[in-house]
């Protein structure tokens, strides 16, 4: 079929003309499109940045972003690997040794030569100074400088010691000159110290590297970090490379951060984002749909005329879509720009990362633009259909009149404005109900979110998280992951000394922790089995989510050996941990405990306090690190007096024991405190807080503080996303409700233009008419408020009360403050919306309106 080419330009002209004729609608619609695009864009920025930050975090934890590395190579093997076509980039290094200097005990510092690429792959490229050039130059990170107690000064002399022969205790020392440094990475416990190529080359000149490797020595071996063409199947790629080059014996390691499972774990964090997208879509849809729906109702006679003149429904739909397209042309680019700006501002607020990274991936712009466009397109569907389907006759008659009503109504009261308004609401019951329901839903949700949030009880929360006014912790307990460090440097004697001099200090306590091996007697094994494997291994099965636990537990039974987590406690801790409520077996005797011959075992809190605890029983003896102790009591250990699950993989299943700090230090000398607890008189707490803050700022950025102030902050940040989501959902629902309300009022008024004219012609004054419309609005508001107060009171009083009852950090407080705040707002809307709508109508003269449809 030949397309009628003459009609297309006509449609274009029509599009342009009706686009121009609707200036105010266009402005509102463009604003709506901008809003929708802004929301989509910022969500895209957030999710893309979140993914990217997660990747970056994983890379930093892995220590490199290279795809894989080949280890223990000779120089020739390294050269050979570089030739493989699959390898697109590489960085090479030569290992010297591991620094064993005082202060570096809990940081593994690898001394090696590395080329620039290797350093860059490892996030270890100097930001101040440069990579080593001179023979004795060295570049290292600020964390190492901190650990060595050195200032950040280029040119200073630094001496490092390492073992050239791993089988001997002999250390080799060398004085270097600091030529560059970069910011140390707290989340990776390993650091790098780079020496010059010349130093490495001269040191291993003539050394048989292959021989070194055969002897399991690392000195002089080469390492190659490489990037390959494809990110997926790294394991296979690595094996393929080795097979291709005929060196299958070489060892390699692929970067776990590229593991699809790790990526998948990141995606689950994006589910809230997905919900956000749906929410944006729905709200965008409702806004834009409303605008077009009103516009179509307004212009229905125009479309009717077009129909009469032979325009097909399809052409009318096209006309509407074309107008929407023009609006997008303005709205989407503006939305993308504003949205990207907003997203960049939000990223640092919502993504908790040391260096939040704002992604600028083209996916953001493309995705947001497509989503926004699709939203607009879908929003126009129904109005376009309605406009296309309208029959010419209907269009000319179209008004919002009730079709099915009662035949009669027995009243002779005369016409009152308020009763007319009420009848008008009844004309379209479905729409009235929708408006009232969506407004009510939004307000009730808002009230619930608010009441839930308001019920947070800082004191209760504090009691569950801390056992004293202030707790300071070692870095290893506050960093995002890793195992606790029994020799941490955060709680230095100097810091403890200064805390002990604080004004108003009342009580203090220290917590030490160490892991050691413990032999299991048949009785203990029996108790373990009784506890974990009764009732069809119920508790054992419940731990399946933690494969390390299962592995440790099975291993403990097989080897008859378990990891013991030994705590040293002093100050108020022994008394506090053995309060009657926590003692499960035996009894605590402070004097006997301090004698150093007794130990307290940790058990599990169970519903039945008499249950056999899976640990050594009271009175039995056990040996910890070579010293024998007698079990005095079994207690349910308080959560805040522990190491927050930083047991490490080898102690996912372990047994807890508590010793007096003094005896603990005898069997584990040089241990440093994991936590230090202290109470401060109420009036001195602010000063104590300030002291700790200052200390953190000026001396040790890694100091982690728990106090009422930090706790409230922590709670806020932990629950921020939930609160924001809750608030956003209810505000958007309320917003949609208000839009429905506006839409309902506007359509009702626009479509009754003629009716109003006729009412006016038979004697209703403009003021009376306006009053009637205001009455209509007020009826909406009053009905909504009645429904909101009723359901809101019930929802908060029953729903939120129940929800809060099971929450350990909350105390229920009844509040419907959001409703009270919304009441005048809603009433105001109820008056303003009809007034504004009416103003538009009033401008047209009575006769014109009367004539409109004739």
């Amino acid at each position, binding site marked *: 079929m030949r397309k009628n080419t003459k009609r297309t330009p006509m449609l274009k002209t029509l599009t342009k003309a009706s686009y121009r004729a609707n200036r105010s609608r266009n402005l509102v619609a463009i604003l709506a499109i901008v809003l929708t695009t802004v929301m989509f864009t910022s969500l895209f920025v957030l999710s893309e940045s979140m993914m990217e930050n997660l990747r970056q975090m994983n890379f930093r934890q892995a220590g490199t972003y290279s795809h894989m590395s080949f280890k223990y190579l000779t120089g020739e093997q390294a050269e050979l690997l570089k030739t493989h076509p699959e390898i697109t980039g590489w960085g090479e290094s030569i290992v010297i040794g591991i620094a064993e200097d005082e202060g570096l005990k809990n940081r593994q510092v690898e001394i090696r030569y590395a080329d620039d690429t290797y350093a860059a792959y490892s996030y270890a490229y100097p930001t101040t100074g440069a990579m080593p050039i001179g023979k004795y130059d060295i570049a290292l990170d600020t964390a190492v400088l901190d650990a060595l107690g050195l200032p950040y000064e280029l040119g200073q002399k630094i001496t490092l010691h390492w073992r050239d022969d791993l089988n001997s205790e002999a250390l080799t020392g060398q004085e270097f000159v600091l030529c560059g440094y970069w910011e140390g990475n707290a989340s990776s416990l390993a650091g790098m110290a780079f020496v010059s190529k010349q130093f490495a080359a001269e040191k291993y000149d003539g050394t048989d590297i292959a021989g070194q490797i055969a002897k399991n020595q690392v000195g002089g071996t080469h390492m190659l970090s490489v990037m390959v063409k494809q990110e997926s199947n790294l394991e296979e790629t690595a094996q393929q490379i080795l097979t291709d080059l005929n060196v299958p014996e070489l060892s390699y390691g692929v970067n776990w951060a590229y593991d699809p499972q790790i990526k998948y774990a990141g995606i689950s964090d994006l589910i809230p984002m997905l919900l956000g997208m749906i929410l944006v879509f729905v709200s965008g849809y409702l806004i834009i749909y409303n605008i077009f729906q009103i516009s179509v109702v307004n212009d229905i006679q125009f479309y009717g005329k077009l129909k009469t003149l032979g325009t097909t429904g399809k052409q009318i739909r096209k006309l509407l879509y074309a107008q929407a397209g023009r609006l997008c042309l303005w709205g989407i680019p503006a939305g993308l720009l504003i949205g990207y700006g907003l997203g960049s501002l939000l990223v640092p607020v919502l993504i908790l990362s040391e260096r939040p990274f704002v992604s600028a991936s083209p996916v953001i712009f493309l995705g947001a633009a497509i989503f926004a466009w699709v939203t607009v397109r879908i929003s126009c569907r129904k109005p376009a259909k309605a406009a296309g389907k309208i029959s010419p006759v209907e269009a000319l008659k179209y008004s919002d*009149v009730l079709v099915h009503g009662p035949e*009669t109504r027995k*009243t002779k009261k005369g016409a009152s404005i308020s009763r007319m308004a009420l009848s008008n609401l009844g004309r379209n019951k479905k729409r009235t109900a929708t408006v009232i329901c969506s407004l009510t839903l939004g307000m009730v949700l808002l009230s619930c979110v608010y009441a839930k949030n308001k019920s947070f009880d800082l004191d209760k929360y504090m009691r569950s998280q801390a056992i004293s006014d202030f707790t300071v912790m070692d870095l290893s307990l506050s960093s995002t992951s890793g195992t606790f460090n029994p020799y941490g440097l955060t709680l230095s004697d100097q810091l403890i000394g200064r805390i002990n001099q604080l004004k108003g200090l009342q009580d203090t306590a220290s917590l030490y922790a160490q892991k050691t091996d413990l032999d299991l007697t048949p009785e203990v094994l029996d108790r373990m089995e009784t506890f974990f494997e009764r009732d069809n291994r119920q508790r054992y099965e419940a731990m399946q989510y933690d494969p390390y636990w299962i592995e440790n537990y099975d291993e403990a039974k097989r080897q008859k050996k378990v990891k013991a987590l030994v705590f040293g406690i002093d100050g108020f801790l022994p008394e506090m941990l053995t309060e009657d409520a926590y003692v499960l077996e035996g009894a605590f005797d402070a004097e006997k405990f301090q004698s150093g011959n007794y130990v307290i075992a940790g058990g599990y809190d169970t519903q039945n306090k008499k249950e056999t605890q899976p640990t050594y029983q009271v009175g039995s003896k056990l040996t910890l690190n070579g010293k024998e102790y007698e079990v005095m009591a079994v207690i349910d250990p308080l959560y805040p007096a522990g190491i927050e699950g930083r047991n490490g993989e080898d102690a996912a299943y372990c047994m807890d024991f508590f010793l007096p700090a003094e005896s603990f230090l005898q069997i584990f000398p040089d241990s440093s405190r994991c936590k230090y607890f202290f109470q401060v008189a109420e009036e001195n707490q602010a000063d104590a807080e300030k002291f700790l803050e200052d200390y953190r700022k000026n001396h040790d950025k890694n100091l982690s503080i728990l106090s009422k102030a930090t706790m409230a902050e922590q709670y806020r940040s932990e629950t921020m996303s939930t609160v924001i989501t809750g608030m956003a959902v209810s505000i958007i629902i309320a917003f949609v409700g208000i839009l429905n309300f506006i839409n309902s009022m506007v359509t009702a008024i626009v479509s009754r233009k003629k009716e109003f004219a006729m009412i006016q012609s038979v004697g209703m*004054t403009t003021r009376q008419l306006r009053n009637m419309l205001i009455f209509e609005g007020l009826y909406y508001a009053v009905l909504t408020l009645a429904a909101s107060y009723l359901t809101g009171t019930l929802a908060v009083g029953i729903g939120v009360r129940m929800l809060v009852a099971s929450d350990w950090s909350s105390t229920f407080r009844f509040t419907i403050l959001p409703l009270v705040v919304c009441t005048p707002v809603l009433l105001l809307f109820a008056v303003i919306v009809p007034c504004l709508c009416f103003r538009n109508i009033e401008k047209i003269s009575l006769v014109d309106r009367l004539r409109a449809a004739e």
Partner: protein
Amino acid sequence: METILQTKNLKKYYGTGETTVKALDGIDLSIEAGSFTAVVGTSGSGKSTLLNMLGGLDHPSNGSVIVGGTELTGLNEEQLTIFRRKQIGFIFQNYNLIPVLNVWENIVFPLSMDGREPDEAFIGRIVTLLGLNEKLYHMPNHLSGGQQQRVAIARALASKPSIVLADEPTGNLDSRTSDDVIGLLKMTGKEFHQTIVMITHNNDIAELTDRIVRIEDGRIFE
């Protein structure tokens, strides 16, 4: 007889310059109290415009309209509405009943808006004359066209206006119903001594009135 309605050099122009449309071009008309006048003319002759001017629905470009001694051009929009509902009853071609009100409420609507108590005995007589007794509680959309127009007549009469203006009251009705409606109009006019001005393009119907005024191109040819 006394003159109740008078226009002097009444003009209504739309647009300016060359595109000016002269809907009314100098109308001088006097209508006596209690008379039944038909205004006839072809479509676009200006007869509806004239009726709107007489009823204070539209403002003239020039000249004046005097209704029962009141100069309408001196009133503002709000005053006009109030004047209208006290003095003038309107009957429209499409009845213009209010869909959310029943028949009784529609009839007393102008009175209610004016804050007046309806004269039940008086309205009762109108209702009986118009044969609406059985339909008082019906909603307008459940009535036939003729019944709806009778409600509109009742409404126009309920406030005891001195003047009833009817714009093609039979335009949507078949000829038998039309005769009925005109008969009723005539009868109530006599009964309540009202002045009726009716627009029609139907000469047979015009013949039933006391006086016929013909309008062409905005001018009167009597």
